[in-house]
């Protein structure tokens, strides 16, 4: 009932489902699913949708409400309606454009690093390796540690230009140690965050690799395809959807990275490591200016939506079968 082994010329069918079973495409479409299943599906989806809806709408409504007020937590008596003033204030902050740029650079770089490194690491872990379980655990371990602790370890035990490990290694080779947080603060933060999220990407990709049909790969090999071809035309398309998921989920988290910045550079030097989340933090919890922080939060949501829109444009195709 299933179509048999794939054709030898893999490059000709880049969009076929990776398992090569053409007939499965037809059974997926909604309208042809049995009515009973459709109703059931709808019912199963309802709790999740309902809960998330409440979870979204209540804070959103309150945030919109607060964003129109001049409301400082320390001066609650001076509350008054000010319309769009908070938005104007937040958007005309000289720090805003810099923080927007930093946010995009941070997100883009970490995405790039985690995926470009995550794919080879996942492939490597998929090989027959002696003691594979332990290696897998080692690779996933960075994700276990609390972000603030990771950042502190990197900053003080590894990257410190006087007493850090990297400095010591540099001196061993006669080079001057790099003053990470002085000369390349954003890059240092990118490194730390990428290290933390690499396990996430690796694990999802690795899990996805488990469902890659060995038979296909073997058939390709028997037909003379080299390792690179196999990778490009069988493995990579199979990984298209997981990579998309990794991109989208990581983006959502990376847009609001803040703990690592807070603990290492405090947004500085200057504005070099201030991102939108940190800017909002400095409004909300340093100035206790709830009006401005709410406005900032809404601005962040708008920015995130724009970013997501573009991302979906680029990779969203992969979400469907």
């Amino acid at each position: 009932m299933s179509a048999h082994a794939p054709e030898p010329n893999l490059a000709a069918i880049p969009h076929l489902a990776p398992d090569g079973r053409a007939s499965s495409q037809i059974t997926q479409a909604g309208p042809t699913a049995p009515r009973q299943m459709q109703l059931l599906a709808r019912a199963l989806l309802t709790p999740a949708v309902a809960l998330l809806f409440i979870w979204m709408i209540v804070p959103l409504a309150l945030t919109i409400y607060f964003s129109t007020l001049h409301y400082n937590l320390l001066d609650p008596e001076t509350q008054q309606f000010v319309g769009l003033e908070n938005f104007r204030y937040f958007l005309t902050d000289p720090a805003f454009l810099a923080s927007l740029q930093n946010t995009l650079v941070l997100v883009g770089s970490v995405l790039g690093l985690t995926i470009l490194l995550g794919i080879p690491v996942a492939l490597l872990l998929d090989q027959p390796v002696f003691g594979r379980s332990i290696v897998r655990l080692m690779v996933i371990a960075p994700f276990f540690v609390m972000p603030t602790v990771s950042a502190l370890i990197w900053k003080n035990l590894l990257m410190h230009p006087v007493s850090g490990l990297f400095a010591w290694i540099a001196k061993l080779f006669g080079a001057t140690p790099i003053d990470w947080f002085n000369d390349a603060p954003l890059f240092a933060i990118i490194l730390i965050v990428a290290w933390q999220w690499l396990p996430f990407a690796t694990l999802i990709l690795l899990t996805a690799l488990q469902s890659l049909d060995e038979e296909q790969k073997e058939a390709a090999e028997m037909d003379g395809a080299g390792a690179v071809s196999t990778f490009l035309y069988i493995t990579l398309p199979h990984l298209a959807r997981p990579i998309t998921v990794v991109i989208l989920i990581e983006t959502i988290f990376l847009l609001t990275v803040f703990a690592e910045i807070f603990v290492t550079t405090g947004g500085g030097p200057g504005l070099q490591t201030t991102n939108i989340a940190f800017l909002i933090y400095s409004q909300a919890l340093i100035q206790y200016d709830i009006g401005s922080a709410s406005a900032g939060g809404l601005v962040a949501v708008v920015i995130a939506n724009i970013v997501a829109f573009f991302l979906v444009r680029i990779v969203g195709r992969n979400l469907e079968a």
Partner: protein
Amino acid sequence: MARVATARRVAISTISAWLVGFLIFFPILWMVLTSFKTELEAFAVPPSFLFFHWTTENYATVQERSDYVHHAINSIIIAGGSTLIALLIAIPAAWSMAFAPTKRTKDVLLWMLSTKMMPSVGVLVPIYLIWRDFGLLDSRIGLVIILCLGNLPIVIWMLFTYFKEIPKDILEAARMDGATISRELIYVLTPMAVPGLASTLLLNLILAWNEAFWTLNLSTLQAAPLTVFIASYSSPEGLFWAKLSAASTLAIAPILVLGWFSQRQLVRGLTFGAVK
């Protein structure tokens, strides 16, 4: 593995994998080593790898000062509870979107993800006020609710991805053989979804375990998990690297154990190829 795994291949893979693993794991190893040093040694130059004065004084201090067990139990309840509840809600949802998708499925998925776009910092005060009015401040339930809702979109997304990998034919074959939907779920779908479930459980448990913003702000004592425990070791005036390392090692210990068990589920060997 049907392919012949030559000894040479295994050797190369093993060495490279261990090298990569070691590089990635190194900072954590460094942290664990530091937890056994004195504060003075922790910051010493040149740094000592293994030949320093090993001491357990940091662990003793940490134990004395804060109630590790209490915080650990809270973490287990909060992170575990929120993840399990999220799974319960997400599995049916992901199933329905993966196996009975409609034109709107992609939109629904993206909408779910968008509920996470608001930086937590922006909604701290509204949520704090609501929690205060409902008496949920410093309660485990309050934290479970927030972490569950926060991670729900991620759980759904990940499960959706893994469910999509499962070949329809197997399910169809089962249905053709007369299985009802529930049997289909239990006997056919679940075993194939185990790796996906395991990795989703693990990653989301970790996300909930390390979630520091809400747990710090909405808990005081009773419901305080390990994130609060660690926050008390980061001192503004005084050396604390060794103690922080010890506290951190204690904090990740339960997860390491869980991680060990669950990642062994990510085992290839499910017989996809057997379906003909």
